[in-house]
């Protein structure tokens, strides 16, 4: 029996799967947390079991608990265990759990690298798929770097299911490891034309995401996308592409012009609303980008607006919403076409859907003009009254203020109206935006001088009725406006009708209930008012009024002196003493008004918000340097820098300590009140004194008389409405007047118009009610003009701003991980190790044991895999010749500009030519072959020649077809040339550095001396020819089995003061080497150099030679003929030269792994030779770098002062070197399958070193 129970419970423990867990939780609604905690205990037990099925079950349950908010990161290691199960069922569970709870901070992630790599290369496509899906959720920079290459191979997987996943995940990889973008991009581009629509869609998706952030780098893809757009029928792809075009058009208006037609067609033809909407959106983007240049697209705008109106009128709320959204985009550039639909948009303000109302509000913001501002705001004010719920009402309030204050109050013609709107807004119940209203009041009063009189009057009434605002505790937010009111009344008190009355209002005892920072402003401004009153009564001898004012202050101020708020207290006591002193003087009949006003003299100007930031740092001032060295021991002293500038609002200075005091005071007050109430002898404050201030409402406040042509008050209307009416009348009157005037003086136009007030043409007719002088904000002298402080430096997409059209350089390759042979290290692996120092370090401690165990387990797999890198390598080697053929074809076809590096001009070509689809096709085909070039050269590390490779076809092409553009290209080439020089040097500098690291010890090594590939070919008084070592070599397979091509680039430099033209280059062909001439040319015809040389200018030309045997160096005689043209005469000159093809120039830098290298040497096919160099006085790494640079070798391995090097000829001969150095002697043992080639190469090496 007991056994049964035990067995049962064990069974239950094993059997409780996800469904049971869910059921259990549902059955324990009351004590869910408790139940789950017992479940988690069970799960912990299950995770300890060896059975993977039990573990997987437990992990599956954890995934569910994670959804409920439980942190399951403690099980991360178990999740990894389940992930590495060989069964798909469990693997899937593991990856799901990992994708739900792993993130960059999860430390076990670094254990997963190999497991994921294994799954990625699994023969089962679903293993791969599951790994990709999981990885997409938790990829880290480390994983991205280590797996980028594996994923890139998957992009060409045979199964489209894997391809599309691999393509998509590349985006995540790019984000985490931006260096992978350039090497992977060509293949990604290829996938745009994948036969499978899913893969194509994925590629479009990724490129769209990339292009959205850095559109300029993807402009060159426009033709390809254009083709896709016109051919694809998949709405998803279409939407993405159309969205992408929306991002590209702002950069290239010509693209927009090209797009308009097909987009308009789509708009007319499609039935899918989503597509239609995106088309309209992109057309809008196009129109925006064209708005400056092309005025005649009104038809398209009309079409868009029309379609959007249909959307907005649709009963489907979604379409209505989107219609409004798109409308707001048109608004920015074509406000007029939207403004005609004002009725529709105002209608949307009444919609029951808040999203739609908010959208409509947004639209209103852009739709206002001087004409309709008052009307629109009136409508909004009505909505404010009707609106339910404070959030929407607050939104309305901010929108009203936004609309009115936009672009420096551009649309406000009557600021009196605006002030009254603000005053009306203060009547809103329970708004949070008192501060916003206050700042608007301050802004207007300060910046619009003409309005100050009116503003002060309004503020005075506000102050007088302050109890209306403060009476209700709910309306606390609004009392902020009193802050503004008090300040305005004080600062501009000269405009006050009756400063005495305002002063009295500001010193009422009730003021003491206001927040401290407002009281402080009250006290300070009371002093200002006092000064004004004194000034007013200045000159009157023994002025009763002035003395009364002093007395008032002396009576009332003590209330504030007792304030709990320090700021209030300080100001009040200061001013109180001042007033007492003044009173004394007054009693002695001394004139004080002058001195008192001097206290507050001078005007405060508004300062631009960015002004502080823009103050230029004076020369020689280092803000980071210590002014005084900090004393070493006293760290506590410099805890916080003291504020240099006083805070604007004193409320910050209120400390917690005083709050406590306030509470205490309140308590005491309460006690005292009760005491007083029960004390019959205490005389209570009469309620009548309060009644005085209880005016019925703001509407009935007697408005201070303003000097206006028409009486202000229209009974029964709120203030702002009165203005609306007045404004209409005024405008009509003005119109009539203007008509009269215009008849008289047509030419004299309104000169009074201010810049700040000039709106669109039609609105200029409306002159502002009063001359408004908008004071601009102050900026410091020599303010820096830069405005780039809005960019977010942490945006991950910033790192992806990479120029993708540039040909790939050596540094642009993905780290390829190879397996670690026990003894020998391959250079590639070392590079890998170098870039993962953190990982290896981390692993070193605890993980070592685990690693060893795992290694043992995995040794079998490793053996299998060991073969792989070699295979890959072979593939790479094979692919190189292919690529050569391809680019050769491109070159020979010499079609219109088609190479990768010329893609920018491709775009120009595409954009300028009228017939589209055929051109686009032509363009895309070669560009994909160029992509192949890039990929393979990227994969082959240290492929030095790849840069020239890319530029080469362009040159040939330019020589034949682009004579017009020559000048431009000359300059470009020159730049390129310089860059290349630079690049060479840099690269070898890098190589040297790398070599040194290969031994695992980083030596302190001197920088390499600059090296140049160019040698003098021939020179006379007119011209100098420099030849670069045959820098580009093509290996031609197929028909010309035994023929190779060599490209020689020659720099021509004009040394004379004359113009050199009609340069012709000719070489006497030998049996072995021939200059490649254009078809149809005779064997002895010379080639025209495709440029002319102005004085002092140099340029580079390339010539292709075909070579049969490469084992011997070659010398070819040649002549350059040219015409020297000076002002007076022109002469025909010639220059003879000898071209020297060294054997070195037939070698290609090819990387070789040490194991392959060892095999090669073992094979015994190679014949040896050796060389000794004496008196070499340079560091070993310089020596190696020189051999690498001048003779196209790569270092296979370096140990101390011994290095093995490898190179390969264009015809496939292997050349191996073993370089040793001791003292000043260098011995080179060499092996090669072609002895004569080897001998010549060694001779050349000897020569190189004899020169230095």
């Amino acid at each position, binding site marked *: 029996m007991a056994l049964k129970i035990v067995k049962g419970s064990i069974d239950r423990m094993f059997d409780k799967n996800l469904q049971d867990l869910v059921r259990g939780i549902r059955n324990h609604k009351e004590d869910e947390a408790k139940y789950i905690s017992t479940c988690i205990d069970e799960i912990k037990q299950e995770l300890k079991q060896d059975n993977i099925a039990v573990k997987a079950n437990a992990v599956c349950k954890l995934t569910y608990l994670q959804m409920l908010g*439980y942190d399951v990161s403690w099980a991360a290691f178990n999740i990894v265990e389940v992930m590495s199960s060989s069964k*798909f069922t469990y693997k899937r569970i593991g990856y*799901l759990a990992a994708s739900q709870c792993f993130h960059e901070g999860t430390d076990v992630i670094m254990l997963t690298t190999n497991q994921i790599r294994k799954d990625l290369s699994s023969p089962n496509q*679903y293993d791969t798929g599951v790994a990709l899906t999981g990885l997409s959720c938790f990829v880290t920079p480390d994983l991205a770097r280590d797996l980028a290459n594996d994923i890139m191979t998957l992009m060409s997987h045979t199964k489209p299911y894997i391809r599309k*996943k691999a393509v998509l995940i590349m*985006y995540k990889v790019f984000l985490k490891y931006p260096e992978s973008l350039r090497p992977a991009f060509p293949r990604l581009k290829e996938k745009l034309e994948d036969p499978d629509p899913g893969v194509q869609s994925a590629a479009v998706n990724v490129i769209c995401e990339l292009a*959205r952030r850095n559109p300029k780098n993807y402009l060159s893809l426009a033709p390809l996308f254009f083709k896709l757009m016109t051919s694809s029928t998949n709405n998803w792809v279409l939407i993405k592409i159309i969205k992408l075009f929306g991002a590209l058009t702002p950069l290239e208006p010509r693209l927009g012009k090209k797009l308009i037609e097909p987009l308009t067609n789509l708009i007319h033809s499609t039935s899918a609303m*989503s597509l239609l*909407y995106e088309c309209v959106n992109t057309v809008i983007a196009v129109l925006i980008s064209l708005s400056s240049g092309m005025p005649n697209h009104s038809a398209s705008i009309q079409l868009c607006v029309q379609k959007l109106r249909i959307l907005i009128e649709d009963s489907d*709320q979604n379409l209505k919403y989107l219609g409004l959204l798109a409308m707001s985009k048109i608004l920015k550039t074509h406000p007029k076409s939207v403004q005609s639909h004002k009725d529709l948009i105002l209608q949307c303000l009444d919609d029951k859907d808040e999203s739609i109302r908010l959208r409509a509000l947004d639209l209103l913001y852009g739709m206002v003009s001087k004409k309709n501002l008052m009307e629109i705001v009136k409508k909004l004010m009505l909505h404010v009254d009707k609106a339910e719920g404070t959030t929407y009402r607050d939104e309305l309030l901010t929108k009203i203020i936004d609309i009115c204050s936009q672009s420096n109050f551009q649309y406000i013609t009557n600021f009196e109206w605006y002030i009254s709107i603000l005053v009306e807004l203060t009547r809103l119940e329970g708004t949070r935006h008192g501060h916003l209203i206050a700042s608007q009041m301050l802004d207007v009063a300060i910046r619009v001088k003409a309005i100050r009189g009116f503003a002060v009057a309004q503020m005075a009434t506000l102050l007088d009725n302050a109890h209306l605002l403060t009476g209700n505790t709910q309306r606390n937010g609004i009392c902020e406006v009193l802050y503004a009111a008090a300040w305005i009344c004080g600062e501009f008190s000269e405009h006050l009708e009756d400063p005495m009355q305002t002063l009295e209002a500001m010193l009422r005892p009730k003021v003491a209930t206001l927040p401290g920072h407002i009281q402080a402003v009250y006290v300070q401004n009371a002093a200002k008012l006092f000064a004004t009153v004194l000034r007013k009564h200045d000159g009157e001898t023994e002025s009763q009024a002035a003395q009364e004012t002093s007395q008032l202050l002396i009576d009332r101020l003590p209330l504030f002196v007792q304030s709990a708020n320090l700021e209030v207290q300080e100001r009040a006591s200061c001013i109180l003493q001042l007033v007492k002193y003044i009173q004394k003087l007054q009693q002695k009949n001394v004139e004080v008004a002058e001195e008192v006003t001097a206290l507050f003299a001078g005007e405060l100007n508004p300062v631009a918000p960015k002004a502080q930031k823009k103050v230029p740092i004076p020369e020689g001032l280092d803000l980071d340097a210590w002014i005084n060295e900090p004393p070493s021991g006293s760290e506590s002293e410099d805890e916080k820098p003291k504020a240099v500038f006083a805070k604007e609002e004193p409320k910050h200075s209120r400390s917690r300590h005083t709050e406590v005091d306030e509470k205490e005071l309140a308590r005491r007050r309460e006690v005292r009140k009760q005491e007083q109430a029960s004390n019959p002898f205490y005389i209570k404050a009469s309620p009548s004194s309060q009644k005085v201030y209880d005016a019925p409402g703001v509407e009935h406040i007697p408005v201070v008389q303003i000097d206006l042509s028409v009486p202000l008050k229209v009974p029964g209307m709120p203030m702002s409405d009165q203005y609306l009416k007045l404004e209409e009348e005024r405008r009509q009157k003005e119109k009539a007047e203007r008509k009269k005037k215009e008849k008289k003086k047509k030419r004299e136009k309104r000169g009074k118009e201010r810049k700040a007030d000039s709106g669109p043409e039609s609105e200029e007719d409306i002159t502002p009610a009063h001359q408004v002088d908008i004071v601009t904000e102050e900026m410091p002298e020599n303010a820096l003009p830069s405005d780039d402080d809005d960019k977010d430096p942490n945006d991950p997409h910033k790192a992806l701003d990479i120029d993708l059209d540039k040909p790939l350089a050596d540094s642009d390759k993905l780290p390829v991980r190879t397996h670690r042979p026990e003894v020998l290290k391959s250079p590639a692996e070392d590079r890998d190790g170098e870039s993962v120092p953190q990982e290896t370090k981390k692993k070193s401690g605890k993980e070592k044991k685990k690693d060893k165990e795992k290694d043992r387990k995995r040794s079998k797999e490793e053996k299998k895999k060991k073969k792989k890198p070699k295979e890959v390598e072979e593939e790479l080697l094979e692919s190189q010749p292919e690529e050569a053929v391809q680019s050769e074809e491109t070159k020979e076809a010499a079609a219109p500009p088609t190479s990768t590096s010329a893609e920018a001009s491709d775009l120009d070509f595409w954009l300028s030519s009228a017939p589209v689809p055929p051109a686009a096709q032509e363009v895309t085909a070669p560009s994909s072959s160029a992509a192949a070039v890039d990929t393979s050269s990227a994969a082959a590390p240290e492929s030095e020649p790849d840069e020239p490779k890319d530029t080469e076809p362009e040159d040939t092409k330019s020589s034949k077809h682009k004579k017009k553009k020559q000048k431009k290209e000359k300059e470009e080439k020159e730049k390129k040339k310089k860059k290349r020089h630079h690049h060479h040097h840099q690269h070898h500098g890098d190589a040297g550095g790398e070599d040194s690291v290969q031994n695992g010890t980083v030596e302190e090594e001197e920088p390499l001396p600059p090296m140049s590939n160019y040698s003098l070919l021939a020179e006379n008084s007119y011209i100098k020819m420099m030849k670069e070592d045959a820098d580009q070599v093509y290996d031609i397979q197929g028909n010309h089995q035994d023929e190779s091509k060599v490209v020689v680039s020659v720099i021509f430099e004009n040394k004379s003061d004359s113009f050199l033209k009609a340069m012709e280059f000719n070489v006497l062909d030998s049996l072995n080497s021939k200059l490649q001439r254009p078809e149809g040319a005779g064997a002895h015809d010379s080639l025209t150099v495709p440029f002319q040389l102005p004085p002092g200018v140099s340029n580079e030309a390339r010539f292709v030679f075909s070579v049969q045997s490469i084992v011997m160096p070659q010398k070819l005689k040649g002549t350059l003929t040219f015409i020297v043209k000076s002002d007076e005469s022109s002469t025909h000159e010639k220059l003879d030269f000898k071209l020297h093809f060294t054997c070195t120039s037939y070698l290609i830098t090819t990387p070789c792994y040490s194991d392959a290298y060892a095999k090669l040497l073992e094979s015994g096919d190679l014949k040896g030779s050796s060389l000794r160099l004496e008196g070499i006085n340079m560091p070993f790494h310089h020596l190696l770098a020189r051999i690498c640079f001048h003779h196209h070798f790569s270092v296979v391995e370096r140990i101390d002062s011994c290095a093995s090097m490898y190179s390969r000829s264009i015809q496939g001969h292997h050349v191996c070197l073993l370089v040793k150095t001791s003292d000043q002697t260098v011995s080179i043992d060499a092996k090669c399958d072609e002895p004569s080639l080897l001998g010549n190469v060694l001779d050349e090496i000897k020569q190189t070193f004899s020169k230095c």
Partner: protein
Amino acid sequence: MIKAILIFNNHGKPRLIRFYQYFAEDMQQQIIRETFHLVSKRDDNVCNFLEGGSLIGGSDYKLIYRHYATLYFVFCVDSSESELGILDLIQVFVETLDKCFENVCELDLIFHMDKVHYILQEVVMGGMVLETNMNEIVAQVELQNRMEKSEASDQ
């Protein structure tokens, strides 16, 4: 990009959560609560777009949701996604669920959260739309289920 996919019922109980950007568990729960709060107070006949889930994203992000019987399907997306496109995608996803579970109801999602995840993985990957063709999605899901079955019978 899709930043998050949330499925919860009329009471705000999560039925599936899928974040494509890391948030700690408590933050995730808070986002669910806030999203539920925003979505649940909306009528059924208002638009399916919502701005201003302050927790995820910022101004570039929108909530796009659909309400089916007892469940809300909410996608949080940025401006690179087409609004109507995502609505269609939700429809495709739900129809796929319907096919895979044969007349799907909330209980299916409750008891088979893992399966729902596997289906979703065939639709959206790492925040990007992977497949929109329902037949293709269903085919891939079934193939994988078949594999799982064959593995189970091997034991």
